[in-house]
């Protein structure tokens, strides 16, 4: 009698997504959904979608969802969590949303120690709007708004958000992970799980920064994109844990 040993988690709706072939959003969505199911949190979760390629995330997660204005998801999540302290509230944001227009909101949500969980998808480019430079784009990286490559003297160095937030006491768990291979994927899932456990135990703010690819706007295949990320992004954005408090069992 055949049985299914791996399939779609309950927290992920059985619908096709609009993401490009090979886009890591799909993998990250599934990991978040698996964690919500494993923590038995799905039924009391409210997710906050942001503005970027994942703007339509509200159609993909099997939880109540709120669409937030660009950059404002941590503030929206704060409003929700203050009304539903026993709920599980997460934001799902890209690099422009969190590190450009939304820098104040993420810093202050972390500083306040808001009991929310943020999933930050860093692919060093603005995907949805067609490939413009992001605050996390690398020096010399060619984008549609840095056609000669990102210039250090004009645009500065890219922002390392996990390290930046690590100065804040309210941030109880900050980790940078990747989903480019199975080993990293397993670590990413463990980090996402810990980030939600930090919220559920009431400790404070948690964020997982997931290094990701954008094959379409980087102009490469999904397999080549993984390699580009490994060669170019990982040296600048080291994987690791930048803050970690222990969750009381």
């Amino acid at each position: 009698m055949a049985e299914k040993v791996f399939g779609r988690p309950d927290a992920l709706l059985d619908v096709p997504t609009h993401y490009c072939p090979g886009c890591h959003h799909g993998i990250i969505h599934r990991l978040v959904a698996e964690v919500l199911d494993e923590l038995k949190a799905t039924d009391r979760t409210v997710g906050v979608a942001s503005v970027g390629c994942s703007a339509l995330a509200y159609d993909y997660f099997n939880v109540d969802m709120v669409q937030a204005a660009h950059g404002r998801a941590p503030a929206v999540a704060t409003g929700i969590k203050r009304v539903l302290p026993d709920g599980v509230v997460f934001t799902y944001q890209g690099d422009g949303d969190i590190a450009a227009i939304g820098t104040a909101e993420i810093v202050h949500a972390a500083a306040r120690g808001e009991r929310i969980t943020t999933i930050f998808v860093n692919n060093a480019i603005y995907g949805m709007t067609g490939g413009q430079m992001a605050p996390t784009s690398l020096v010399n990286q060619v984008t549609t708004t840095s056609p000669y490559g990102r210039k250090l003297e004009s645009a500065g160095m890219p922002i390392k958000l996990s390290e930046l937030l690590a100065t804040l006491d309210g941030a109880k768990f900050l980790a940078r992970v990747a989903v480019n291979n199975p080993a990293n994927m397993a670590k990413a899932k463990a980090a996402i799980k810990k980030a939600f456990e930090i919220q559920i135990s009431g400790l404070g703010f948690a964020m997982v920064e997931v290094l990701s690819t954008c094959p379409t706007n980087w102009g490469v295949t999904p397999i080549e994109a993984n390699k580009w990320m490994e060669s170019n992004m990982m040296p600048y954005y080291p994987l690791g844990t930048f803050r970690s408090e222990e969750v009381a069992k």
Partner: protein
Amino acid sequence: MSEKILMKGNEAIGEASVVAGCRHYFGYPITPQSELIEYMARRLPQVNGEFVQAESEIAAINMVYGAASAGARVMTSSSSPGISLKQEGISYIAGSQLPCVIVNIQRGGPGLGSIQPGQADYFQATKGGGHGDYRNIVLAPNSVQEMADITIDAFDLADKWRNAVMILGDGALGQMMEPVEFKESTRIPVEKPWATTGRHGRIKPNIVNSLNLQPDLMEKHNHVLQDKYARIEAAEARWENLQTVDAEIIVVAYGITSRIATTAINKARANGIKVGMLRPISLWPFPSKPLSDLAQQVKAFVVFEMSAGQMVEDVRLSVNGKRPVFFHGRTGGMLPTPKELYEKIVAVSNGEGGK
């Protein structure tokens, strides 16, 4: 509570919101409404509410958006420049049909402006301010008692219509102290089956959203909103008539300006001029019909505002060319005196109304 107590206007709004069942407030300090955020900081913990001083007015309106999505009665407040910051959030609230109360204690502008009272945010409040086709219900009190009463009504109206309600005050009303008593809220708790509370067994997730990439569906949604606004217009216009029955000249003024105008009108009446006032209490929906009706009977209208002339345009639209509409305004935070308003009434009465 039926005893009268002396309170500042800003604080009366705060207490009234608590009477109305508001337990979530998100705001940022700005003169001349900081007493309101400070009152909420003291009062909400006393009733197990949640107070957050946000990092900006933008963050505050987005916290309101989140709390309203989750089904709470929620309020924010600011003054003119801060209300400008909130406009994107207000448009999202309108598009998502979320109930909430937004208080603007107006000051002189434009730009950083002055900290004295103004009424130059009328366009922003009633015509948009944020992008897209939408309307906020806008209520304009003119006394501390009315600030309290209107605040309680605002929460009921917001829930009834799933709409933002803006309370348009000004720095004078916010700072003045008058006796006030707080009526019981007539609130019938409104079910919010659409709220994002967590599914808790519900099969279909609730989504609060204003994005729609298909233009035909976006248009359908706009029709839904416009239909709602038409029903609000038919049901919620509020105004007060003062000595209008035999009036030949009608003053139109709201907020603190209407209080000063009352003094001018009484002096004019004492000197034999038949003048009255229609005081709009709802600025949206605007009391167009009563103004249009009055246009049959009177000789002229004169509009007083603390602006370069904003509400006067709606008065002209309502009167629709039937009678002349004159205007007198002060800007920058200056309050008109009863004397200058009286002199304008006299001039209009003598056929020398000017503009």
